[in-house]
């Protein structure tokens, strides 16, 4: 018993545990700091530039809903996407991938940081301007069942926003819809049907058609195939790649399925608990994953060869709560290579080799 007490005492002496209020102060300071950062330099090659994006959801308590803590859903994420390329964003459930996507779309307001779309800071323009900009950035949702209004026919679902934004003249509307639907592998006679009459794959095609009908530059695909079975997944992925070639689209492909990401992405970002832990080109990251989390994640990719013995890195425990994440490096609670510093200091993102960014104390 005495021994245990001593260890505990040592541990408390070793690093100062932040109180709730202190943590809150620290987070407030972080928001202020990031808000004060100067605008980043815009590179015209990039469709999307995200710098230190912060999305904190306030936790309100008490009678007057006073903000006392934050859920750090996105905690300083930076990346750029070049025109015509696809960036894969991977990570476990609840690591903030979808929140990144929605914040980029301004479906939720950012807390701090910068999001540039074609050089425009989309969180700074008025809502009316934003509405005009919306056709250019589209989103494809994970669940093809709930993302289509059950009481509207397909033509209406696809054509509604086209009409709203006058993407094509009114007379050409019909022909345009036919063309878009054919592009997405739908038949024109599907126009009068309702979503409930379609299979999951067909619905996702409808979602894709809805997006590309607006002639967007950039599409956020939020796990577009995870609700589909594997054969259909391939169809959809191929369709998306075809469309990218035809229309010169740029994708942000959010997924937790690494094989799909490998297939479609040019660059890959790995997120853990609101942080981007590693960000590199597909080749770099697959050939040489640097971050222990990436390593563990990639070791889970099944190899379709019965003779190869997989060396899986099993992560202990589950992902901590983003409302109360571990101090220092957020991954240290599950990291096999955890060091003393990891518990106290959050690692900076460093460019280990050209185009390969990683946030880990191993590479200090």
């Amino acid at each position, binding site marked *: 018993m005495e021994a245990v007490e001593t260890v505990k005492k040592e541990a408390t002496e070793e690093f100062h545990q932040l109180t709730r209020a202190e943590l809150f102060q620290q987070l407030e300071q972080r928001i202020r700091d990031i808000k004060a950062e100067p605008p980043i330099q815009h590179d015209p090659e990039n469709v999307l530039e995200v710098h230190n994006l912060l999305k904190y959801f306030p936790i309100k308590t008490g009678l007057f809903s006073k903000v006392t803590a934050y859920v750090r859903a996105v905690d300083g994420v930076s990346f750029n996407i070049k025109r015509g390329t696809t960036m894969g964003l991977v990570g476990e459930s609840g690591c903030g991938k979808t929140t990144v996507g929605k914040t980029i779309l301004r*479906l939720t307001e950012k807390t701090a940081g910068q999001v540039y779309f074609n050089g425009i800071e989309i969180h700074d323009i008025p809502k009316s301007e934003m509405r005009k900009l919306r*056709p250019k950035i589209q989103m494809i949702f994970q669940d093809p069942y709930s*993302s289509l209004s*059950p009481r*509207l026919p397909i033509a209406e679902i696809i054509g*509604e926003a086209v009409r709203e934004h006058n993407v094509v003249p009114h007379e050409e509307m019909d022909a345009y819809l036919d063309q878009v639907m054919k592009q997405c592998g739908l038949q024109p006679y599907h126009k009068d049907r*309702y979503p409930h009459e379609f299979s999951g794959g067909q619905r996702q095609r409808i979602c894709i058609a809805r997006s590309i009908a607006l002639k967007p530059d950039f599409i956020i695909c939020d796990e577009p195939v995870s609700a589909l079975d594997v054969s259909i997944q391939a*169809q959809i992925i191929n369709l998306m790649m075809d469309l990218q070639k035809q229309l010169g689209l740029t994708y942000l492909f959010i997924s937790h399925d690494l094989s799909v990401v490998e297939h479609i992405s040019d660059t890959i970002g790995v997120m853990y608990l609101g942080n981007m832990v590693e960000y590199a080109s597909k080749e770099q990251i697959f050939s040489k994953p640097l971050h222990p989390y990436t390593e563990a994640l990639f070791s889970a990719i099944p190899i379709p060869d019965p003779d190869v013995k997989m060396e899986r890195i099993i992560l202990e425990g589950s992902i901590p709560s983003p409302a109360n994440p571990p101090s220092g490096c957020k991954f240290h609670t599950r990291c096999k290579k955890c060091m003393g510093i990891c518990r106290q200091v959050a690692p900076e993102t460093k460019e280990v080799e050209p185009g390969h960014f990683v946030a880990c104390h191993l590479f200090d």
Partner: protein
Amino acid sequence: MDKEKSAELEKQQEAPKDQEQLALDDARRVKVLSPGMLVFKRFIRNKLAVVGIIIIAVMFIFSFLGPIFSPYGRAQIFTRNVEEPGKYATGKFNTEPRILGDDSMKSAYLKALGDQKDKTTGKYNLTVGQEISFTSKDSAYILKVLNPNGATPSCGIYGMQLIATSMDGVAVFESGVSVDEGLKGLITEHAANGGKEKTLEYKGMQITVQSVSKVQKKYFASSDTPVALASVNICTPTLGAVADFQSDTEFLRAVSLAVMAGESSVDYKGDSYALTASGEGTLLTGPDGTELFNIELENRSETIEVESTDKDGNPVTEEMDFLSTVEDADAFLQAMDGAISEGVDSFTVGENTYTLEKMDTEYHVTAPDGQLGVVVANSFTPVGTKYDALDTDLEFRFAMETAIGKGAPSFSYNGENFGLVNNGADYSVTNPKGEEIMLVSDIAYGPDYVGIELTVDFVKKLQEAMRTNQDSFVFVNQYGEETTALINIVNGNYYVSTLQKTTLIDGRAAPSSEHPLGTDVNGMDVFTRLMYGGRVSLIVGFVVVFFELFLGVIVGGISGYFGGVVDTILMRLVELFNAIPFYPMLIIIGSVMDNMHVGQYERLMMTMVLLGVLGWTGIARLVRGQILSLREQDFMVAAEATGIRTSRRIFRHLIPNVMPLLIVNATASLGGIILTEATLGYLGLGVKYPMASWGSIVNQVNDMQVMQTAWWIWIPAGLCILITVLGFNFAGDGLRDAFDPKMKR
């Protein structure tokens, strides 16, 4: 889908239509169904729901089209004519003498008479002509027996004159009364002796002594002046002819025309009636010489209302005599009389032409300016005969009673000789001509209602029946109709009832071919009332539901879509409305409306508004919840991401997805509202008579008798409520199942 396949499909589409050979897995084989159609298909597969819809449809046709074909009105009251025994008259053997003339001594008289009664036999020991003195208050009387027979003797009552008063044995004689010395002495002596005797005799004269107190005595002397007659006999003058003619307007018109024309006789129904001038009027004599009427030619104009304007220009209505509005009244009357007698319908006075219209004995005159006046041309005064007032003539009655007491067949009065016919216990009096002028009997009678005139025939028959203990008899009533009278004896009173034709409200009539469901308490056709009641019940149901939907969707929609502070405020409002006690509120407002005499339609409106205002909260919560959940659905996010306007997002994406829920909820709550309305109607707080609703029809069952005997009043209405509510519930359940995507069949 690869390009090959889509090319193949394209080819198929381009192929001629007569060769439409589709592949087995061709998507076009699937019929396109909109969500609405799908719901409909699912709905009609549900047998209960179809039954519900059929019930609702039938109820609608019944309630909204039924009344058009119903031969009866909503509040038409049905009556039936019945002949039932009704009170007509009461007869009684009269034992208590009626005093004709001054009756102030009645109680003293009855006491004096009662003293003569034999206590053991109960009979009076009296003889004709027997005299008994009695005192009453300050006066003394002598009764003289006229007729000792019968239950109670008939007596003449003579007043006595006060001649002296004694104080302490000293007699003081009244001044102005001549008393001879012998009587004076007798009274003085009597007074001095203390005066024990009650009566004194002096030269055949009876002196009555009244002891006022121990020391004061009064002495009265008899006189021959009768002051009253006490008899149990009732006299009925028998002058039927006059009454008969008086009600015959045809006859009266003929007579009045003849009078105005100055003719000396009128022929009517084959009889000739003489007209002779008498005094100011004309006397009408019947064919048998009886005098019937005295006709006075009199132009009496009635007051009319004349409209004019006062000095401020406001219209005023003034009552004026019609004649006073005519310029030259004399000339007018002359011209009018002439016109009436000539039988023309217009006459001219000066430049004005008046029109004349006969209305019974009245003439309506219309002036050139349209003013209508009523002129009564003639007035008829029944004359009867000179024997009319004899029943109250004291002298006549004395003579008659005396004759009866003596058993004489005749008596004379006023120089005329009257016959007395004995019909057993009753008598009839005839005049010198031999005509019966009066019935005399100790049977008292009287009509039970104002308006009943008892005919002589009735009186005779009644007397005969009472004497012979008959329990019914036939008589001719005042309208000349033969009527059957039934006698019911209670406590010595003979209650006569006749079968009277009365119009009764045909309430609680059992179902018949005329009224398939009978009539209700108010005599209205239940079947027709059910139709109109259904209208009200269904209209209330639908209007209230629409009102609730209107309020609920707006409040719930705003609350759910905008959320935050708006949501908080609106939901507190909803809770506020939920906290209002429903029935107490309705009961209070219902009685307030009762007090303010709110009209039936306003009342219906108020009831609907109230039900709506108190009932929208449920729908508001439902809509809010649904919108809250829909708002987070991906398709709403997608709609936002595609940059669709807010209004379009609400009306194209949100509302259509709330509609199914609303339709289901509204249909299901319709039944509940109809029930609430019925409850209100049953409690008497809903719609009021003459308006009907199913609830208020059932309300009549609060009478225990209706509940036990007249099932047709309340059971059909109750069944209507039951079936309709069931129908709505079936349809609501069916809709809910049909809209539920999990119910895939």
